């Protein structure tokens, strides 16, 4: 084979052309299908989430799975599509980019509906709210107001509304230096830093803060509520209008049938 130059060149040429053609073919196939068709033909709904946001999505060490309120809602949507679910646990900041590119189909991650996010992705109707932000501190801490945060070290979950709030209300106003704000891709890393003493407070959604307090045997307390009136939605990419409409129908159905209330009772 090595001695016959013409023959091997021919083989390489054929392989290259075949590879090129199949890439185009697969690419074209991908572009024509609607979001729901792609999900159905794949057989699984890929859910993008960011674990550590209790009780919406969290790692259950007994089952070895990510579980939570959001995951159960995702399962219900997938059931009605007659597909299974695949969970991609990413840093929260990676979620929007992932749904736009298509590595995940939906974002169900306690993601607040905001006008800025609406510019790049589409949200379903709200499935949870209203929620505020909380100042989460160690039980021994004396921080009990927004003013108490001035000059302190703060941890947030990267690219969440808590992160944006700290940026706008504390860093931009000069009350906290930018280098004192640690932004972590996963919520639980912020909690770890608080427990280790690396930061004085964590700004995170109140439902999550309260759940961490109740789960952690007196180590933490939710010392102040920052009223932000947030509503969570399920996000899809802008071109997946059919999927968004489908999700809205499912959400309305879950409320009517009482399943939504069952999920709320189960997780909160």
């Amino acid at each position: 084979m090595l001695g016959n130059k013409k023959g091997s060149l021919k083989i390489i040429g054929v392989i290259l052309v075949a590879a090129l053609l199949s890439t185009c073919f697969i690419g074209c196939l991908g572009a024509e299908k609607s979001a729901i068709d792609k999900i159905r033909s794949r057989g699984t709904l890929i859910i993008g989430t960011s674990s550590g946001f209790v009780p919406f999505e969290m790692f259950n060490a007994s089952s070895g799975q990510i579980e939570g309120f959001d995951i159960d809602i995702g399962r219900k949507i997938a059931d009605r599509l007659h597909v299974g679910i695949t969970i991609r646990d990413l840093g929260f900041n990676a979620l929007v980019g992932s749904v736009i590119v298509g590595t995940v189909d939906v974002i169900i991650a306690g993601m607040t509906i905001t006008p800025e996010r609406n510019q790049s992705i589409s949200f379903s109707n709200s499935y949870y709210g209203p929620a505020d932000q909380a100042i989460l501190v160690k039980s021994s801490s004396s921080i009990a107001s927004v003013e108490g945060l001035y000059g302190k070290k703060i941890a947030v979950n990267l690219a969440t509304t808590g992160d944006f709030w700290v940026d706008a209300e504390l860093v931009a106003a000069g009350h906290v230096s930018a280098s004192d704000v640690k932004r972590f891709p996963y919520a639980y890393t912020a909690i770890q830093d608080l427990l280790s003493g690396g930061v004085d407070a964590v700004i995170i959604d109140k439902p999550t803060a309260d759940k961490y307090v109740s789960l952690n045997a007196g180590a933490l307390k939710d010392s102040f509520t920052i009223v932000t009136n947030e509503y969570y939605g399920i996000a899809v990419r802008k071109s997946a209008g059919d999927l968004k409409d489908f999700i809205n129908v499912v959400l309305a159905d879950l409320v009517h049938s009482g399943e939504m209330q069952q999920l709320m009772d189960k997780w909160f």
Partner: protein
Amino acid sequence: MDVWSIPQAIGDTSSQFNILEHVGLFFNPVIMTVLISVFAIILGFGLGIVGGLARVSRLRLVRVPATAYVDVVRGTPLLVQLFLWYFGLTIGLGVAMDPLVASIIAVGVHSGAYQSEIVRGGVNSIPKGQEEAARATGMTHLQAMRFVILPQALRLILPPLSNEFVIVIKDSSLASVIAVVEITAMAGQLNGTYFQPFEIFIFAAFLYLCLTYATSFMMRALERKYHIPGYGDRR
């Protein structure tokens, strides 16, 4: 729901967390790490042989692209390349890329650049007389490479190759950022539930150490088996 017993302070041993109870959680993640590593090493080795030979080729058409590949891939962070492959392939193919496959491709192509340089070093260290003698018997350049130069070069490069394989195993941990549940990802998730970083991450490090040590051990056995007596010895 678990009631987590969170330590009140670092070093607090009153919490009843025992990492050994959760060893089973790491079973599938270890398989993921091994899958990424093995396939990335194989891909890297294939690219390394081709790239290494291309780097020493007389033909500019072959040598220049190979040099570009090696320089660009070695000169940019693996994490950045990982994102490029993962998102790029998803956009290009129009289907959601499997993160495991993307990780193998990214780590493999990255390792291939380094293995190209290792192969090039090995080939260059074979005395020119070997190729001259081979060509004199009527072999083409590629036949000389295949039957005379490479068999010697491959024996010489086993130590740096072993080093590169260990690096690949550690590089596989980056797959955690694109949602592959391998060892590092599982450690992170477990710590996000129990907040015991020392025990959990030391255990994860221990798992990696087992894998890298086993690899080094096998490579050293290969070195002993294929050793040419008196060739490349210092002792």
